[in-house]
């Protein structure tokens, strides 16, 4: 069996050029390598499918697996862990840990995805903390890899004056990036929000997980348009997870999410490992060759509509909490709080 470095090298080459390899062969090889080197993953995968014959047979690993504090989901020695990103979690919730042998594949995937999908080659200004202030955030590392400048200080406050200064000083198009919640906070801050230079873009990500907020994509994009003067067709949604190493992007209101040739997706019927038919709705599972150090197949909690070989994201973390007798009251409350139609 090839070593980590040998397989990594093959995948890096494949990311560079699709003609340098075969997705199916590479992912089966990576999966066998991961099973060989990670007992947790081996035990789970073999309880479902001992010998996958195609990439679709590889069981997607639940994110719960990344929450084990004693044994890690790693395909290399524990002492070789060089970086770790943590999942976000509400109070009292165990956070998942995604460990890396190195960040070559991760960073290669970030750069190559941005380039392959022809996303704007513009300066990126981030409504997030910087990597030193938040070293365990995969999102912030991603933005840093793309050359982002960071506007939220270590105590969590947005530097409005710096935002204005950067925009005034550069006076050329840029990408303003941040979580959907960060944009909402900016819009609701009551402070003067600078209009972005013409031909600028916005990149938003993350949904409203854990915030209790529910705003439709249409309403949110209109808020961006109204507050920042960025046309809706210049708004990018980034979709990924801490447990992954690659990203998907959609542009504007009705676009499907696109990834690159080293990632594939399946939309599964809840309660089974069968894929839904085209246009069917189910749970998104992601196969990411850049995840060589952990698990190349990940089960998300996200609801998606199957669109050929890709997907339309319908909602992030759509798990309903066990509410008992609460449906009517919760509906009523949402009216009282947010005035939804």
């Amino acid at each position, binding site marked *: 069996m090839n070593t980590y470095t040998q397989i990594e090298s093959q995948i890096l080459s494949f990311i560079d050029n699709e003609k340098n390899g075969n997705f199916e062969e590479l992912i089966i090889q990576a999966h066998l390598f991961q099973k060989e080197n990670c*007992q*947790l993953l081996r*035990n*789970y995968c*073999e*309880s*479902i499918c001992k010998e996958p014959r195609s990439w679709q047979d590889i069981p997607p*690993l*639940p994110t*719960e*697996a990344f929450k084990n504090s004693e*044994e890690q989901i790693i395909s290399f020695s524990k002492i070789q862990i060089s970086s770790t990103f943590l999942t976000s979690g509400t109070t009292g919730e165990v956070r998942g840990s995604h460990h890396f042998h190195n960040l070559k594949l991760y960073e290669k995937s970030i750069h190559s995805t941005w380039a392959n999908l022809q996303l704007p080659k513009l300066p990126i200004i981030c409504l997030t903390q910087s990597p030193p202030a938040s070293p365990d955030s995969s999102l912030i590392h991603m933005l840093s890899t793309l050359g982002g400048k960071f506007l939220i200080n270590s105590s969590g406050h947005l530097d409005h004056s710096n935002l204005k200064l950067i925009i005034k000083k550069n006076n050329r198009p840029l990408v303003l990036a941040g979580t959907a919640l960060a944009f909402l906070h900016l819009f609701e801050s009551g402070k003067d929000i600078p209009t972005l230079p013409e031909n600028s873009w916005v990149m938003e990500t993350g949904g409203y997980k854990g915030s209790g907020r529910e705003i439709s994509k249409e309403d949110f994009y209109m808020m961006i348009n109204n507050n920042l003067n960025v046309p809706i067709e210049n708004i990018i949604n980034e979709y990924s997870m801490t447990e992954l190493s690659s990203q998907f992007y959609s542009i504007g209101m009705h676009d499907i999410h696109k990834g690159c040739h080293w990632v594939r997706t399946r939309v599964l*019927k*809840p*309660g*089974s490992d*069968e894929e839904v038919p085209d246009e069917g*709705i189910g*749970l998104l599972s992601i196969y990411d060759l850049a995840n060589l150090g952990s698990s190349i197949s990940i*089960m998300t*909690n996200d*609801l998606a509509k199957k669109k050929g070989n890709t997907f339309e994201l319908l909602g992030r973390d*759509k*798990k*309903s*909490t*066990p*509410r*008992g*007798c*609460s*449906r*009517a*009251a*919760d*509906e*009523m*409350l949402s*009216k*009282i*709080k947010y005035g939804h139609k």
Partner: protein
Amino acid sequence: MDTNKRATALSKAIGTQAETLLELVAKELGHRDSLDRFISYGDIYTRAHPISPILHIVSGNTPAAAIQTLTRGLLIGAFNQIKLPSEGIQEVEDFVEKLPSELKSLIEITRSRQTSTEWLRSARAVIVFGSDETVNEIESKLFPSQIFIPHNHKVSIAVIDSDENKEAAKLTALDIAKYDQQGCLSPHDIYVHPKEQPRSFAAKLADALSELNTKYPPTGRTIEENIKIDDLRRSYSFRSSNDTSVQIWKSDSNTDWTVVYEEDPQFAASPLGRFVFVKPLPNSLNDALNINKEHLSTIALYPFSIKRAETLSLCGATRICPLGSSQDPSIFWHHDGLQTLAPLVHWTDAG
């Protein structure tokens, strides 16, 4: 209509004896005629008047609870406004259809959020079924003079001390399958005495749920509910593949039913939808339920005895019932430990 006539009309709609409803009035209000005339009360006389209107904010997943709260409001003669979920509750609408016009005129139904928000301001009593957060939020919108009866998030469990008749698994399956385990009365966790081999009991329960599922498959689950079940199933499948203290049984190719055996006795919350945990009954159930005691509703007990109920009552449960009847509370039950008619009346004294 006097109380006797209302009880008679209601008894036909809910299939309960009018005499039973009148007995409930007598137990809650001291006398079956309390709402109709002055009755002797110590050295004075007193009579009750319904607090009216009552706003009932009810849930679609537990139609029985919705009908029960409406029945109580009608029995005391109050005007009842009901907020149904947007998809409606057919059982409630069928119930109303069975009532005579005099009682129908005491009911107003809406599915509209706008209307129910307006009703919230004018109601003299508000009965709400909802999550803790929701109940708190609605309470914050009320005036101090409004009576507020919350039925917030509650969970239930079952305790099986012994199973000599080998019927506990089937009775447990009934408690789980009815109303698709929605609501607060269906057990999340089944605590089985170690001498009854809890892991083997879990396998029997899986068989019983599977059998029940062929006759009564779940209907009307949302995709969000299925996702929650799927997510927890995969988490426990991962755990069971790496930890012999956990085992999972589940329906094939769908989310219909799930049984998880877990040696850790600490209470685990089910996502509902016929998803249940089986755990060994610990020496101290109190400790296992520690974080959920304030939310504990029902303990379904097998075999049932008042003597055993006395010891379990110390766990904080508001109801201990025979296994198999979790979802069918008596008309006399103290819903969430509270009186059901007494808070809905006020009194005029004479003498």
